[in-house]
């Protein structure tokens, strides 16, 4: 039953529902998780605002354009956070403590089984809400008027960005099959994704190349924002290929890791 796409979807919805129940049970935890993001992002927005009190534009970007970019970054990151947070646990302890076997003995794909444990992770909701607010607010302030094609592409751009985040996460989390725990590597990669919330034009060329072609976080916010703000498709046309290749690389590493996994028994 669960092997068919329809069954998979039903299972995902059911597990998502379980996640939402958990949300109601641990209300303070939910508020703390989402509230923490509100505070952090709120202060980040203020920091950007203070910069623009002193200059009209930074690297050719105005205040609202930077906030629009930041909003895009939060939307893709939040969407990814909502569904793949369990990968942190994989990198942190599932292999190390020998707990990973439980995903192998269920009658669904191990990756699906793994991720389903934290579907609708509430901590991502704060990011999504702030991201949506920033995009709409700064978009309105800029008088942005997207064409029909742009409107149609928006959900796809967000999805592709989230998939790139998920791929990077899966790639570094899968390293734990070889290194037992890969938390530091994953944390490092995540730290670098913070650069994506600001215009890449600020950075040194080497850092730009790294963020575009090695850890492609440029495609999670900068490329879509430049397209939506200026209609510039120079970078955007690489998005499908980059998303596909990132996913393929991550899934290939995950499969190789899976096939070499041996439980540490006790």
């Amino acid at each position: 039953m669960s092997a068919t796409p329809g069954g998979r979807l039903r299972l995902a919805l059911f597990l998502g529902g379980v996640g939402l129940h958990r949300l109601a049970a641990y209300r303070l935890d939910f508020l703390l998780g989402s509230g923490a993001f509100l505070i952090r992002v709120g202060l980040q927005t203020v920091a950007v605002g203070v910069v623009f009190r002193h200059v009209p534009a930074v690297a050719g970007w105005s205040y609202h354009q930077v906030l629009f970019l930041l909003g895009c970054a939060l939307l893709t990151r939040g969407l990814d956070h909502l569904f793949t947070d369990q990968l942190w646990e994989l990198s942190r302890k599932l292999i190390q403590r020998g707990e990973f076997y439980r995903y192998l003995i269920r009658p669904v794909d191990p990756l699906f089984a793994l991720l389903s444990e934290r579907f609708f992770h509430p901590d991502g909701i704060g990011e999504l809400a702030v991201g949506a607010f920033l995009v709409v607010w700064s978009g309105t302030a800029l008088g942005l008027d997207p064409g029909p094609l742009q409107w149609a592409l928006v959900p796809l751009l967000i999805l592709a960005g989230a998939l790139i985040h998920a791929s990077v996460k899966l790639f570094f989390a899968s390293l734990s099959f070889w290194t037992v725990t890969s938390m530091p590597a994953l944390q490092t990669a995540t730290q670098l994704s913070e650069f994506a919330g600001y215009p890449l034009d600020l950075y040194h060329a080497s850092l730009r190349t790294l963020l575009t072609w090695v850890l492609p976080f440029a495609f999670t916010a900068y490329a879509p924002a430049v397209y939506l703000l200026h209609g510039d498709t120079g970078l955007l046309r690489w998005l499908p290929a980059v998303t596909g290749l990132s996913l393929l690389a991550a899934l290939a590493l995950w499969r190789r890791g899976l096939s070499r996994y041996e439980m540490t028994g006790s």
Partner: protein
Amino acid sequence: MRTALRPGRYLPFATSGLQTLLQYRSTFLVTGVTAAAGAAVTVFLWRAVYADPTGPGPGGFTRESITTYLVVAQVLAVAHANRVDDEVAAEVYRGDIAVALTRPVSYPLVRLAAGLPVVAANTALVGVPLLVLFAALVPLTVPAPADAALFLLSAVLSVLLAFCVNLLTGMAGFVTTNTWGVRMAKQGVVAFFAGQTVPLDLLPGPLRALASVLPFRAMADGPLTLLLGRYEGAAGAAAVLGHQLAWTAGLVLLCAVLWRAAVARLEVLGG
């Protein structure tokens, strides 16, 4: 002297803290990349504001002094990453705190003893290389010797303050299981109101007033004011150090009071 206050009792905790740290050497890499990325973002942003290299810009900063402020703020943040909040929260969450409480030592002092080697190692292995790296990439201000000495004194106080702030954050584990959220929020608030993302003198009026009443100012902005000589004579320097001392004393007291209250109502389920 009460046995719980004899310093020798805490030496084993300090050495074991260091041993644990050296087992997980990759954490240095994470701390380093985090600090370097944080410094890079703020430095790139603010250098765009001070694009004109002649004369002082907003807040009386020059291009060099604002860069120095932001880079050294990150170095201080590295010295403040003592992991006390993580450790305390985790021990409370797992219930291991019960075992720790049976020992004839003061638990907060144990955490301080275990945290100090972490601070020293972080400063030496991450903070100093970070400073050297940025000094090689961008011009920094060379401080006057007296200012550098005042900065060092002030930096030591800021480490104590950071310990108190992190201990209080870790104690949130007594009331919630989502200590991750509390720690995230703490990080954001401290980074902002200490001056790590925006030099406090550049904040608009109300926010600046808020920053000046919070203790976090003493964690980065205070030492940096001394380092860059942005104070008026001996009285100005004394005011910065006095503010730091007062907040350190206040938070130590708060930690002691809250710690007693928390332990009194602690309940650990055994198994």
